[in-house]
């Protein structure tokens, strides 16, 4: 031992559902150097949004940037468009968007948590987490009509209303989900082997988080108080009982705990939304042509999502710029790996919940 081994991690790897490529130089399994290649899934969506699709269609295209946070991308785009064109969205539509976006966050967080357990070799916990995640998928399917790509939000409102029958089933399922989420939180917090493995592994300190502009659950796990839901009013989060979850520590363990706690908060918000859902229209027509520029920040499950759009009174926008959370977290991941054990790499990568199809677009 002691000789340098080059370990490629990705682009095809069983621990990764998506292609990112890290090339590690290791000595005794300690990483001394790392290169990262994120471009495997670059498709050119930004270009297509500014040349091929009309501004009313772009919302459905950007949803295909990422299947995990599809609603966030659509929300980012439609919020920017509505603000640009001065459209007043009905309250009921906002609440429905909020409901779907929180359910989406739950499913994405559960996916990330389960996946981290899987790459830590804890297959049973992965299975249990995914089993409870199916509840959310069923709820989303009931609500929007599809499991993954919902296309729920559209410029001016939402595409599908919540009927009383669906609401009844949602409440039943939400109750079951709440129990399970509490149980999961308990496991992720107190399981001995997880704590042994993850506490103090892959630590992002608060200074590091600030310096490297970390976003999302990794930042909040490091103690950095940043959440776009509190910093940007794109949906009425204040009214439905949003709380910011901030922990100290910044290791894989805390990142997962932040997710588990946020899932609980999201469930609470879903209850409040269902209880206080206002009556009214779900959609207003959007007329006219976009002119000028607008940018919004959205809290996607992985962190801050930034949309910049610019139009010049044409059916096709001039520029759509998407800055996704993983894109902002790649630099800190690269810093983090140097000096780490190779055995900890998969769990660290997954604990950032990287979404490469977002990153490369």
């Amino acid at each position, binding site marked *: 031992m002691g000789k340098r081994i080059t370990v490629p991690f990705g682009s095809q790897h069983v621990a990764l559902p998506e292609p990112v490529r890290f090339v590690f130089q290791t000595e005794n399994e300690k990483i001394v150097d790392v290169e990262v290649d994120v*471009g495997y899934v670059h498709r050119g969506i*930004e270009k297509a949004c500014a040349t091929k699709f009309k501004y009313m269609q772009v919302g459905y295209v950007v949803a295909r940037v990422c299947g995990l946070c599809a609603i966030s991308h659509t929300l980012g785009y439609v919020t920017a468009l509505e603000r640009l064109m001065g459209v007043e969205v009905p309250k009921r539509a906002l609440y429905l968007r909020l409901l779907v976006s929180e359910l989406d966050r739950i499913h994405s967080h559960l996916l990330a948590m389960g996946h981290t357990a899987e790459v830590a070799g804890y297959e049973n916990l992965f299975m249990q987490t995914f089993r409870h995640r199916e509840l959310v998928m069923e709820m989303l399917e009931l609500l929007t009509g599809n499991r993954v790509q919902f296309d729920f939000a559209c410029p001016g409102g939402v595409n599908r209303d919540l009927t009383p029958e669906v609401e009844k089933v949602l409440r039943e399922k939400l109750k079951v989900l709440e129990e399970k989420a509490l149980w999961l939180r308990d496991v992720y917090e107190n399981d001995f082997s997880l704590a042994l493995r993850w506490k103090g592994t892959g630590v992002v300190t608060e200074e590091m988080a600030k310096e490297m*502009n970390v976003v999302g659950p990794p930042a909040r796990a490091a103690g950095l108080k940043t959440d776009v839901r509190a910093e940007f009013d794109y949906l009425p989060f204040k009214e439905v009982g949003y709380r910011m979850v901030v922990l100290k520590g910044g290791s894989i363990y805390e990142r997962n705990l932040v997710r588990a706690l946020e899932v609980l908060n999201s469930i609470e918000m879903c209850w409040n939304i269902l209880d206080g859902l206002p009556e009214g229209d779900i959609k207003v027509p959007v007329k006219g042509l976009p002119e000028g520029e607008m*940018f919004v*920040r959205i809290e996607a499950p992985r962190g801050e999502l930034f949309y910049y759009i610019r139009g010049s009174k044409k059916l096709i926008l001039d520029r759509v710029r998407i800055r996704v959370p993983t*894109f902002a977290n790649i630099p800190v991941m690269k810093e983090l790996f140097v000096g780490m054990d190779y055995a900890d790499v998969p769990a660290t990568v997954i604990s950032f919940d990287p979404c490469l199809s977002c990153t490369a677009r």
Partner: protein
Amino acid sequence: MVVDEIKVPLREVRRTIKEFYDPKEWHFITVNGVDLGGKVELKWFFTKYGEREYFKVVTSEASYDDEIPTITYLIPSAWISEWELADLFGLNVEGAKRGLFLDPESPQAPLRRG
């Protein structure tokens, strides 16, 4: 939404950012380019932790051949946005490597218009 926009010439960009940027308070979002035909409008977006809907935008314009100053001295995580800019607009950004997203056989500088 409060937007605090500062328009500066390209060579002043780094100094302007250095004047106000403090990693403890400011959050760097991204650098964005928009093609205006023949030149590119560049915007550096910042926001403050803990404030609602507050943005600080540093705007500048660059022709296709200008050397864009890098801000990785101030903000180490900015390299990825700058590399993307270099890749997708074909701009000459200080210290940026090509090929973050594009392959040799993809069209070069796809986000330029025309």
